[in-house]
C-alpha cells in the first residue's frame, strides 16, 4: 500500500568528510545487479538521462507521474551541482557559467547511479571535485529553512530541494577527491489539493 505523501524533509545521513578511507558508499546505496551506472560526459546528456529514468518509472497513474516529476527534478539538481557548483577556482568561485553547456575535463568524472524496484527509486551522482563542505551543507539547509523572504539570490536552494523531496538523503564528501549526493524517492499517493 502506498504511503500518503510526506510533508517535510528527508531523513538525512550526512556522512561528512573522510580523509582516511577511499571513496565509496557501501551501505548507503550498495551495488546490485540491477543498478544502472552512467558516466556523464556533458550537460547535453542531461535530458536523455532524465528521460531514461522517467520512462523507467512510467506514467501509469498520478502517483507514478508525480514520482517521475520528482525524479526529473532531483536528477536535474544533482547534475547541475556536479557540473557547475562543484568545480571551483582556488579562491572558491564557480569555474563555469551555468547558462552555457559544458563538457567535463579529462581529469574529471561525473557518475550517475540509479535503481528502481517499482516502489523506490535510488539516485546518486558523484563528482570528482570534493569541493562541498560540511559547513556549507548545513548552512544551505538552515538558511533555506529559516528565511521566509523570497530572495532570488539565495544560495543552496537546489540542495534544499533535494533534502526536502528525497525520502532518504545523503551527502558524503572526500575533500578534494569526491562528493557523492544521493537519496531515494518512494512511490506515494499524490495529493489532490496541490498543496504541501
Amino acid at each position, binding site marked *: 500500500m502506498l504511503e500518503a505523501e510526506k510533508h517535510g524533509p528527508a531523513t538525512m545521513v550526512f556522512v561528512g568528510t573522510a580523509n582516511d578511507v577511499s571513496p565509496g558508499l557501501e551501505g548507503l546505496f550498495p551495488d546490485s545487479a540491477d543498478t544502472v551506472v552512467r558516466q556523464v560526459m556533458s550537460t547535453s546528456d542531461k*535530458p536523455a538521462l532524465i528521460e531514461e529514468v522517467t520512462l523507467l518509472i512510467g506514467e501509469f497513474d498520478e502517483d507514478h507521474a508525480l514520482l517521475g516529476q520528482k525524479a526529473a527534478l532531483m536528477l536535474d539538481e544533482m547534475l547541475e551541482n556536479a557540473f557547475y557548483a562543484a568545480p571551483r577556482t582556488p579562491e572558491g568561485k564557480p569555474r563555469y557559467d551555468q547558462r552555457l553547456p559544458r563538457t567535463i575535463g579529462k581529469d574529471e568524472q561525473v557518475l550517475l547511479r540509479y535503481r528502481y524496484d517499482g516502489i523506490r527509486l535510488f539516485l546518486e551522482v558523484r563528482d570528482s571535485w570534493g569541493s562541498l563542505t560540511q559547513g556549507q551543507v548545513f548552512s544551505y539547509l538552515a538558511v533555506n529553512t529559516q528565511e521566509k523572504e523570497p530572495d*532570488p539570490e539565495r544560495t543552496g536552494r537546489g540542495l534544499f530541494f533535494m533534502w526536502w523531496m528525497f525520502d532518504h538523503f545523503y551527502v558524503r564528501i572526500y575533500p578534494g577527491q569526491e562528493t557523492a549526493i544521493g537519496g531515494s524517492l518512494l512511490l506515494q499517493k499524490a495529493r489532490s489539493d496541490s498543496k504541501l
Partner: protein
Amino acid sequence: MDKPFSFVFHKGPLHEIVHLAGVIDAQAEAHFEELQKKINGNAVVFDFSQVGRINSMGIALILRCLKRLASERKITVQLQGLNQMNAMLFKMSGVFLLAKEVR
C-alpha cells in the same frame, strides 16, 4: 524529451497574460528579461500549464522577475495552471508571497 523554454504574450481586455512553456532553468534567463519588457499594464497572469520542470535556477529567475514586477513596478501578478510539483516548489521558495495562485 525536455522542451526548451518559450513564452507567448497576450494583451487581454482585463489583464495581460503570459503563457509559459517548457523547462525553466538557467537557459531561460534571456527570455525572462524579454518577457518583463513586454508587460505594460497593471495586472498580468502567468500561465504555467505548459511548463514542465522548474529547477532551482528557474525558481531564482521567477523570483527575480516577480520582485521586479510586483515590488518595484507595483504590477499585480497572478499565477495559474501550476501542477502539483511546481506548486510545491513555489510554496517552498516563497513565490506565493509575491504572486497569488488563481484557479
